[in-house]
Every structure is written in C-alpha cells, then in structure tokens.
C-alpha cells in the first residue's frame, strides 16, 4: 500500500525539488533603470524651477504673481492619498509573497482606486488654480509641466499595476516568483516619492 502511495504522481511532485527562483530578475532590474531615468526627468524639471525661483526671489523679492492661487489643502489631501497607496501597494507584494491571492487582488484594486482618487483631486486642483499660461510665465509653464508629467507617471503606474494584476490572475506570480508585482510596487513607490518632492517644493514652500 505504501509503495502505491509513494508512486503517486502527486506525491512525487510534492517531494520534488522546487523550481529555482527565476534568477534573472529581468523585470525588476529593468524597472529600476526606468525609475532612475524618470527620477532624473523630475530632477531636471524641479531643478529649473528652483533655480528660477531663487533668481526671482533675489531679483524682485517675489516668485508667484500676485493674482494666482496656489492652494495647499488639496495637495495635502493628494499627498495623503498617495501615502495610503504606498501601504496598499506594499500590501499586494506582501500578500503575493504568502501566496495570498485574494488579498493581492484586493490590495492592487485599492491602490488603483486611490490613484484614481488622486487624479480626480488633481483635476479639481487645476480647476481651482486656473493659471493662465500666457500671463503667469514662466511659473505656469513650470507648474503645469511638473504636475502634468507626474500625472502621466501615475497613469503609467496604474497601467503597470493593471497589467501585473492580469498576469497575477493568469497565475504567473507565486510566492517564489513575484517580480512583476514587486516591479510595479517599485515604480509606484518612486511615483509617490516624486510627488512628495513636488508637494514640498511647489505647494508647501511655494
């Protein structure tokens, strides 16, 4: 009887050596390079913003035109929204590491929902600001370029998460191989870090 059990293909599979972890973490490495490039894009934009602001403060004592509005309440809420999403996206990584698939999907969905909320909040912020690019130059060009580029980044992060979510649904990720989710989370964290910088430079210190 015992011999019959031992020869069961299922048990044999269970005792077999686990497959090696995919050594070349290709997607994670590639995502890290992309993150570095995007970080430099924002470094360039914010660098120019800071240089021009410093020059303006030194020359005329003021940076923003008198008639433009830069609210802080909405950016604070947006920052909070993204901070929450840091936890939810990391929750998805933690869940997939434990082969907890329902929580993985739930965490990814909540992250997407928070990101969507951020986009709605940003739209509302733009409707409040109503900067005229033709009048408030170069400040308006800078603010819209920086926040607009970040908007593009958050949309790309959402697309990344959705794609990885579909791959997870297709069973491509497990506790031993979850590079896709980890890569999406890395991109997400960098996106939030970039917004933290934008929030501080543009909205807090104005």
């Amino acid at each position, binding site marked *: 009887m015992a011999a019959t059990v031992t020869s069961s293909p299922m048990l044999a599979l269970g005792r077999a050596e686990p497959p090696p972890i995919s050594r070349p973490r290709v997607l994670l490495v590639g995502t890290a390079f992309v993150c570095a490039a995007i970080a430099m894009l924002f470094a360039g934009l914010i*660098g120019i913003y800071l240089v021009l602001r410093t020059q303006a403060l030194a020359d005329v004592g003021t940076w923003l035109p008198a008639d433009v509005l830069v609210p802080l309440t909405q950016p604070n809420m947006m920052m909070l929204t993204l901070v929450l999403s840091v936890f939810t996206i990391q929750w998805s990584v933690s869940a997939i590491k434990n082969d907890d698939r329902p929580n993985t999907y739930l965490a990814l969905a909540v992250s997407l929902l928070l990101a969507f909320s951020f986009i709605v909040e940003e739209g509302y912020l733009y409707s409040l600001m109503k900067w005229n690019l033709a009048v408030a130059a170069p400040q308006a060009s800078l603010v819209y370029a920086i926040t607009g580029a970040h908007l593009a980044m958050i949309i790309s992060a959402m697309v990344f998460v959705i794609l990885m979510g579909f791959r997870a649904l297709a069973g491509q990720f497990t506790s031993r191989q979850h590079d896709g989710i980890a890569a999406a989370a890395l991109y997400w964290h960098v996106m939030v870090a970039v917004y933290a910088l934008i929030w501080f430079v543009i909205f807090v210190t104005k």
Partner: protein
Amino acid sequence: MAITETRPATQPPAVTSETERFVGLVDHDPGGLAGFIGTGDHKALGRAYILVALLFGVVGYALDGVYRAQQAKDFLPADRVGEIYSLGHVTFVLLCVIPLFIGLATYLAPLQVGSRTIAFPRAAALAFWGWLLGSYLVITSYVINGGPDGSRAKGVDLFYVSLALAIVSILVATVCVLTTVIALRTPGLRLTRIPLFAWSMVVAGSLWLLTLPVLLATMLLVYIDHHYGNGSSFSQAQWGQLSWAFAQPQIYVVAIPAVGAISDIIATLSGVRQQNRGVMMTAVAAFGILSFGAYAQPAWSPEVMNQALYVAMGVLILLPLLGLVAGWVTTLQAGKPLLRSSLLFSLGAAVTLLLATFAGVLYGLKQMQLHDAAWIERGTPPFADGQMLLVVSAALLAGLGALVHWAPKLFGRFVADGLAKVAALVGLAGGLLAGLPLMVYGFSHKVSALVGAATTLNAISAFGSLLVVIAIVLVVVALVAGRGGEQPTADAWGRGQSLEWAADSPPMAANFDLIDRVSSAEPLLDALEAQEAH
C-alpha cells in the same frame, strides 16, 4: 471571489526547441518585410540601428560641411543657417553616434554575456521603430522651417515632440541593453568579467539614463511654453537651453562606448588578455562619471563654466583616458597585434579622443578665454564646436572600427580590409580636419593673424567633414565588397576571448547551444590554453 482563491492552473507552453523557448518572436518570423517589422530578434534590430545610424552620420557631416562652407562663403538664407547648425548637432549625437553604439550593443551585448536574447525584445523593437519615426520627423520639422528657434510654430512643436520620441526610444533601448548585461549574464560571468565593450555600455547607458531625461525636461518646458503660452520665457533662445547636451562635459558621454570597443578590439587583435583589466574598468567608469554634464547648463547658470567643478571635471577626465591609453599600449606591446583595419580605426579614434580631451582641459581654463562673454555673444565658441567635432569623430571612428571588427558576427562576412584601411585613414584625416581648424580659430582673440584666416579655416573644416562622409561610404562599400569572400568561422580572428566568438558567424537564432560555466573574463582563451596544455 471563488475564481481567485486558488491559483489558476496554467498549461506551460510547449517548448519545441531552444530557439522557441528563448527567442519566441524569432521562431514565428514570417520572413520578408513583415518579419522584419515584427521582429524582436536583437540581431536584426542591431543591424537596422547600425545601418540607419550610418545614414544619419552621412547627413550630419554633410550638414556640418554645408554650415562650415557657409561660414567661409555666405550663400545661404540667414534664417536657415542656425537651423542647419542645430540639426547638425542633433544628428551627430542623437541620430548617429548614440544609436550606432546602441545598435552595436543591441547586437553584441547579449552575445558577449552569453544570453540567448536581449531583455524585453518587444520593447527593444518598439524602441527602434520609435527612434526611426522620431528621427524622420525631426528632419521633417526642419524641412518645414521648424527646429529650435524656427520661424514656423507648428514646425517648432513638431521638432520637440519628435525629438522627445527619439530620446524616449533611445532610453528604452538603453534599458534593454543594460538589463541584458545586468540580469541575463551566463552563470559564472560576474560583472567584473564582462568584456570591456559591454562594461562601457553599462557605464554609458547609465549616463544616458541620468542625463538625457534632463534634456527631455528642458524640451518639455519649452514645448509647453511655446505651444500653450505666449512664448515669453522658455520659448526664447531655445537652442541656448538645449546646447549643453552637445558641449563639454556632456559630449563625452557619446565616447564612453568607444573606449570599450577600442579595448576589446586591441585585446582581441593582440591575442593576449587585456592588461590591468581592473584598472581599465575603473578608468572607463571614471571617464563616464566625469562626463556627467546635466548640471552644466549655461542657460540657467551663466557662471557655471567658471565654477571649480566644471573646470576640475574638464581637467580630471584626461586622467582616466590616459590610463586607458596606457592599458592599450601595454596590451599591444604584450601581444603580436594583427594590423587589421579595425585596429587602424581604433588607433585613430584613440588619438582623436585624446586630442579632444586635451582640448577640453584648455577650454575649461578661464585664463585661455576660449568661452568668455565675447565669444558667447556671437554664438557657440568655435573652439567648443571644434572640440565637439573631435569627440564625435572619435566616437564614430571607434564605432566604424567596431563594425569592421565584428562584421563576421554582424553580417557573416569579413569586410574588404584594404578598402576599410583606406576608410580608416580618410576618416582620421577627416575628423581631425573637421575639428582642429575651428579650435585654431578659437584663438583668434589672442592671435590677430587668425582673424583673417576664418574663411580658410572654415573651408578646411568643411573639407574634413566631406572626408568623414567619404569614410562612412567607404566602410559600407568595404562591407558590400566582402560579400562572397571567405566564410568566417565562429572565432573569426582566431584570437577571440569573449563569448561572442563562441557563437556562429553569424549566430544562429538562439545565439548559443550550450555554454559551460564561465570562470574568467576570457573563457575562450582559457579553453585554448587548456587545449594546448594537453
């Protein structure tokens, strides 16, 4: 919810062959034009990059020749002169030299690290087509009177959008190459053991990823201001905001892969291991770090060229290059080098780059007054233009040398070596003649006799550009003339050291059959020596 509670059972794809397993797209290649358009094969993409980049090299040097001829004898409409100048610079860097090395790396990097494919083959294919489309539209934007500071608004907008597409594509291609080298190395091939060309691509790619997005940031600001604003801020003096990417120290980033290619060519043709390999790798990295130029933007910081950091980087970058030259000389002395055309190209590139870097030292020194306000007011200082041409020419010569050296892998044939040697000499003469006269003219504020020599010096520079065009054409002819010649073996030079020389010439679809665990930087030499010992 029940659907998601357990991991769905998946049917693993049937692996019918190594080719299908590792290359995927290649195996389903329908052939012909459709096959080429849809290919994710790094070899097809690499070849396409190289050939198109050479075409743009001809365009770039032709434009520069026209611009210099215009400076010698006024014959162009005034509004076209600036456009030709800026298009020439953009073509040199973003349409020719960087894509040439990306093409070489797309082809060679997977072979050098023992990988069966490039990382993200679909992204690599998308990058090539994006770059090609972007490059085509960049030139179109100039044709319709656009470009930076162009007189037609839609042409200006088109320039920024299309150049952004080309740059983003270059960045994607760079990520593919870097990821291949970092994550797809064959077992045993540590990062310290990879060939110097692959290492130089890691350094260069890192620098491109860290600096080209900064150029992209400036372009985004100019585009938004120009398209949506009233053109009162960033839309003014547009080329001045972009020009840092084509000047010292940033211009050196195009030459980083050149030093790697030269190193591999010299070591292979000398038949000995690269001497002081660790020092050479460190020197390549130092050369790359000292070429970081995203901070040196005179448009935002007019005094940057007089700051200690700028001057120090301009001086210090000579040191790693001297270290590399010492390493090349030592390797040549240790072996018995074959005097092939690729060696001539390499030596020519080394001499040209050394001159350019020495010129960079002079340019950084304030006492030389080569970039003082008097020059800046009249546009880009001629000394800077001359130095840029020397760096670009050095990189192009090294790229052509690499093309000739690895032609057995790239095209499955040797080039006609005699013709390629002539091309190397013509290219060296052209590169020097294109750049040196402008640098001489840069001293005209100190030597009054040079003021009257502007016409002659510009004419010589134009002639130099023409010679480089001829050199590029000669290399292509030499490549075509090699058709029907001797069929190269896997180790085409009989002295191969790194893994690409273990693959067929040209390699099969999945590059390799099986690779033993690598235990040094020169696995083929190891095998040869072990064979001789027995």
